[in-house]
C-alpha cells in the first residue's frame, strides 16, 4: 500500500508516508522543571496531526522546540531528513511555518504587508537592490505582491488588504496569521490553537481552511482544545500530558483511551461513589429543581 500512495501522490495532496518532521526524544528543561520529556513525534506529508493535552502539558513548549525558539535540552528534530538549525528564521527557511497561541501579528502594518513579511525567506532582495531598484527588484516585488494577494484571497481577506491588521476582528486576525505563515511556502504548518476564542461558525470555517491547506500539499500539526475540531480534522492525534506523550493514534483510539479521559477529567479516587449513590444524588437534585419551580 505504501508504495502505491507514493507513486500516485505527487500532486497537491502529497504522498502520505514520506516523513516530513521527525522529533526524537525531545526534552526541554527549564532549571528543575521538565516541561517536555522525551517526546517522539512524526508528521508525514499530506497529514493533519493533532496535539492535545490539558493546560500546561507542554504543547506550546514542544512547538517552540520544533521551531527553534527554544533549543531542546535533549533530543533532535529533523525536517525532511536534515536536523533543524536552532534559529527560528532558519527553521522557517527550511520549510516550517507557525502561528502563535496569542496572536502575534505586526499590528501596525497593513494586512498585505503582514503577508509580504511572511515572504521574507522566499525572496532575496537586499539593501542594495532596494536602493538601486533594478528590474529584478520590481519583478520580485510584483511576484511577492501577487502571491500575497493570492493567499489573502485564499483565506478570504483580499478586500481588507489595505487595512491595519490590528483593526481586523479576532477571527480574521487568526486567518491573517495563517496567511502570513503560508506566505513562507512551508511544507509543514504548525497551528497553535487556531480556533481559540472563536464561535462555532468560525471554528467550522477554520476547519475548512485547514483542509484546504492540506489540499495545497502542506502537512499540518495543530494544537487545539476544541475536541470536536480535532477529531473532525486530524488523521492522527497525539496526547501530551505533563510533558510526556501518553498515547498516539486515530481519533477513535484516543477518544476511547481511558488514560486520556483520566488526564482531562481526573481519575476516580478510592471509595468513589458507586452508581447507586450517583442515581440517588441525581434524584435528589431533580427533586430540588422541582421545588425551585
Amino acid at each position, binding site marked *: 500500500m505504501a508504495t502505491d500512495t507514493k507513486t500516485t501522490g505527487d500532486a497537491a495532496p502529497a504522498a502520505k508516508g514520506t516523513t516530513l518532521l521527525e522529533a526524537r526524544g525531545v526534552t526541554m528543561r527549564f532549571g528543575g522543571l521538565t516541561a517536555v520529556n522525551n517526546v517522539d513525534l512524526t508528521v508525514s506529508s499530506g497529514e493533519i496531526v493533532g496535539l492535545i493535552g490539558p493546560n500546561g502539558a507542554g504543547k506550546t513548549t514542544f512547538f517552540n522546540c520544533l521551531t527553534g525558539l527554544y533549543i531542546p535540552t535533549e533530543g533532535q528534530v529533523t525536517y525532511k531528513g536534515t536536523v533543524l538549525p536552532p534559529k527560528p*528564521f532558519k527553521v*522557517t527557511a527550511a520549510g516550517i511555518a507557525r502561528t502563535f497561541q496569542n496572536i502575534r501579528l505586526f499590528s501596525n*502594518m497593513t494586512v498585505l504587508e503582514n503577508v509580504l*513579511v511572511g515572504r521574507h*525567506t522566499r525572496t532575496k532582495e537586499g539593501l542594495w*537592490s*532596494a536602493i538601486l531598484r533594478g528590474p529584478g527588484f520590481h519583478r520580485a516585488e510584483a511576484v511577492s505582491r501577487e502571491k500575497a494577494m493570492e493567499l489573502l484571497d485564499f483565506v478570504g481577506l483580499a478586500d481588507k488588504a489595505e487595512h*491595519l491588521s490590528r483593526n481586523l476582528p479576532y477571527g480574521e486576525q487568526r486567518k491573517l496569521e495563517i496567511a502570513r505563515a503560508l506566505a513562507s511556502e512551508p511544507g509543514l504548518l504548525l497551528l497553535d490553537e487556531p480556533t481559540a476564542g472563536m464561535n462555532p461558525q468560525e471554528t467550522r470555517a477554520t476547519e475548512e481552511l485547514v483542509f484546504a491547506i492540506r489540499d495545497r500539499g502542506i502537512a499540518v500539526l495543530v494544537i487545539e482544545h476544541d475536541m470536536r475540531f480535532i477529531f473532525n480534522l486530524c488523521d492522527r492525534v497525539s496526547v501530551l500530558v505533563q510533558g510526556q506523550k501518553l498515547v498516539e493514534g486515530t481519533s477513535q483510539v484516543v477518544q476511547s483511551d481511558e488514560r486520556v479521559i483520566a488526564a482531562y477529567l481526573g481519575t476516580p479516587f478510592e471509595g468513589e461513589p458507586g452508581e447507586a449513590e450517583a442515581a440517588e444524588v441525581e434524584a435528589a437534585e431533580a427533586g430540588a429543581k422541582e421545588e425551585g419551580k
Partner: protein
Amino acid sequence: MSTQTTSPAERTALLPVIPPNVARATATAGGVLTAASAFLAWTWTSAFPGDLTISGYPGGLQVLTLVAGVLTALFGLASYGVRGTRWLAPAGANGPVLLLALGALGTTWYTLLAISAELGGLANWEPGAWFAAIASVLAVVGALGLPFDEKAAASLGAPAPGATPLQQAWHTVRLALAPRPLRAAKRVPAYQEILIIVGILGLGLLVFTYGIGTAYGELFVGFLILAAFGVAAASKAGLLARASEITSRYRGVTMAGAFVAAALFPFTQTDDQYATVGVNILIFATVALGLNIVVGLAGLLDLGYVAFLGVGAYAAALVSGATASSIGVHFPFWAAVLTGAVASMVFGVAIGAPTLRLRGDYLAIVTLGFGEIFRIAVNNMDGKSGPDVTNGSNGIPNIPDVNIFGLDLGATHDIGGFTLGRFANYYLLMLLITAIVVLVFSRSGDSRIGRAWVAIREDETAALAMGINGFKVKLIAFALGASLAGLAGTVQAHVQYTVVPDPYQFAGPVPPNSAFLLAAVVLGGMGTISGPLLGAALLYLIPYKLQFMQDYQLLLFGVALVVLMRLRPEGMIASRRQKLEFHEDDEELLGPDPVAATGTEDSVGLSKAGA
C-alpha cells in the same frame, strides 16, 4: 436610554447667542478690518523693530497681521460659498475661519503687547493699534458664533457619558473645529495638477525663506504663531489632505520639485548670513533622517547617534589635507565622502554587533554609553593620554575648502546674476547629500528589508518566526543609519572649517546632538521623510532666532515635547501607519477611505520645499 441622545444638537456654536449670519458677517468683516489695520501706524517711534509708524505701508509684524486678516476674510467668503473661494475649504470653512481669526488675534496682540512691553506702556499705542486690537477681537468673536458643522458633529458624536466639565469643554472645542468629510475632488488635467504642486512648493519656499529671514526675534515669534494657526487651518479646511492627494499622485514630480525649490533658496538670499543657517539645518535634518531609519523604521532606540556624525566629520578632516591632520593625505572630495561613510559604517557595525543582541531599554543605555565613549576617546587621542590621532580637544582646525572638479566651494561664484557665497555653495552640496539620504530612506523603507525592519519593531519574536534574521536586519539598519550620518559629517567638517570633539555629545544647547536629533525625529514624525526635516528645521531655527530665551531653552523644549506628545503623539507629520494607529476614532473624518484619502507614506511636498 440613559445616555443623552441630544448632545450634539445642544450647542450649535461656541457662542450660540450670536445668530449665525451675523456671526459670519462679523468674522469676515473683522478679517477685512484687521487686514486694513495693518496699513495704519501702530506706534509713534521706530524704536520698536520693523518700523510700525508709517501709515499706508505695512512694516515688520504688520505684514503678518495683514496676511492673517486677508486669510480670515477669504475663508469667511468661502464659508458664504462665494464663487472662486470655495476651493479653499473642501472640508468646511467654519473651523478654519476660527483658527485664522485666532491666528490674526495672536500675531496682532503679540505685536501690540510687545510694543507696550518694550516701549513701556499702552501710551505707545497709536489709534491704529487700538483699531487693530479691536478688529482682531471682532473677527474672533464672530468666528466663535459660527455654527458647528452638522455632518462633522454627527461623526464626532456626543461626549462620553460622565465626562468631566473639562472633557466636555474640550469636546465642544473639537466640535467647533471638526472638519466634515472631504468633498470629492474635481479632477483637473494633469498639467494643472502639476501646476498646483509647483504652487504648493513655491508657497513652501516662500514661507520658509520668510521664516529663516526674519531679522529679529519678535518677527519670528509672530511668524511662528501665524504659521501654526495657518497650518492648523489648512489642515481643518482639508487643504492638506487635498494637497497630499495630489502630491502622492505625482510622487516623482513632487520629490524633484521639492529639491528644486530647496535649491532655489540660496538664490533668494543676498548675502551668506542665512545660507549658513540653511546649511546647518540641512546637516541637522539629514542626520535626523538617518536616525529615523534606526529609530523610526527598525525601532532601535539609539541615544548615541551623533557619534556617527562625528566619525564622518573626523574621517573627512583627517583626509582633507589639513595641516593638523595626523595623516598627511589629501583626498579628493568624493573619496573623502566615501571614507567618511565607510568609517562610520565600520563604527556602526563595530558598535552594533555586540549591542544589537540587546532589546529595548538596554540597547538605549548601551548606545548612550558608546556615544560618550566616542567623544571622550577623541578627546584623549592627543598624543599625551593616547595615540596622536585626533589632536585631542584642540581638534583639527583649518580644514581646506572642498574643491569639486576644479570648482572651489570656498570662493564666491556668480551664476546667472546671482552671487553664491561660500555657505550657499555648501548648502547646495549638502542638499545633494540630503537628496541621497532621502532617496535611500524612501527606497529602503518601501522594500523587503524595510518591511523586515518594521516587523522587527512591531514584534521581534514573530518576525524571527517569519524567517527574518533579526540580528542581521537590525545590523543593516544600524550600519546604514551610521553611514548616512557619516556622509553628512564629511560636509559638516568642511563647512565648519574645524572639528572638535565637544559638539558630539548627548545633550547640549546647540543642535545637532543626540538628544536634539531624537527630538527632531519624534517631534517631526517617526517613520516619515518630511517629519524629521521639518522637526530639524524648527528645532534649529527656534533657538537660533530666539536668543533671548537661551537660558530657558531646554525647559521650553521639554514642555513643547510633553504638549506635543499629549496632543499629537504621532508627531507633526504622521506616517500613514501612525495616523491609523493613534487616531482610529477619527478615521471617518478623513474621508470615505482613509487610506486612499491620505495617499501613500506621507506628504513629502510641503515641508521639504523649505528644508
